[in-house]
């Protein structure tokens, strides 16, 4: 049977996990072709490390990186993007985050109310 595996990881599971372990967990799954949905997003520091670790794992014809998209949470002061940016701190509310292999996950539409993506089999 053909299909795409989707893992929804709860905020509770990630809450006490060290950043490195969290990033390894995400990248291991994404490299296998799994779409990972995080109930709570990554902190900016973790996002930075995720980009760095992703770059280090890219291999020709095997893994070309990740597509990552964040669902906006509650409105804050500031511009539209500030709703996306201030994430990761438990005090600032959770931000649903979708991460998948770059060759399988394609963003179609993103606005303050909707995150729409197209997923293909690898």
């Amino acid at each position, binding site marked *: 049977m053909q299909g795409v595996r989707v893992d929804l990881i709860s905020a509770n599971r990630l809450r006490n996990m060290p950043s490195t372990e969290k990033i390894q967990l995400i990248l291991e799954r994404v490299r296998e072709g799994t779409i990972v949905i995080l109930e709570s997003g990554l902190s900016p520091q973790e996002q930075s490390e995720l*980009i*760095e670790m992703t770059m280090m794992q890219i291999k020709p014809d095997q893994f070309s990186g990740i597509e990552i998209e964040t669902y906006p949470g509650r409105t804050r002061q500031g511009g539209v993007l500030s709703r996306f940016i201030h994430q990761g701190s438990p005090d600032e509310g959770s931000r649903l985050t979708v991460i998948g292999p770059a060759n399988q996950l394609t963003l179609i539409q993103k606005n303050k109310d909707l995150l729409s993506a197209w997923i293909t089999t690898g």
Partner: protein
Amino acid sequence: MGFSQTFSMLLSRLFQKKTLRIGIYGPPNAGKTTLANRITHDWKEVSGNDGKISDIPHETRKALRNENISITGSSGNSITIDIVDTPGVTTKVDYNEFLEFGLCKEEAIKRAREATEGVAEAMHWLREDIDGVVYMMDATEDPFIQVNIMMVGIIESRNLPVVIAANKIDLPDAAPHTIRNAFPQHPVIPVSCLEGMKIDELYDAMIRIFR
């Protein structure tokens, strides 16, 4: 060396103004190297290292540093900075993209490998070794791309001073106001680094924010 000389040297080292290391960050093809080259040409007395510019993404694959550049603004204030031109930040690099620009497979794979190494290094530096950021965005593109969202968040979380350059305003479909609306919490300077349009406003903003 006497006590007074040693004490004086220690004091001067302690209070010596450090040259700020300013990273030029942004997605690929936003014009980072064009800005770095312009700053170097405008302000460096001895010619610096020019970065190569091309339409192929990830032309800059290794950070290029130009040191001790003194910029003086319209108010007469000045700053001395090291400029670090970094590879375009992305979450994906596929060598097949480079084949479309006429590169052979071997060259494309080499370029992709160098690009990934460069981005990883640039991200590491942002966490460890950068005092301020000029964040470049292409004003003809949607500012809502995830890389912009993540990078501005990362820069804010580090409490780094940042100036956003809304580049390519010389192009007819440039819409720098969309960037300004998206990031009202930061100074956004519409600019054309290629043509030099409003470049003095960018220098003034850099002095104001990084000083």
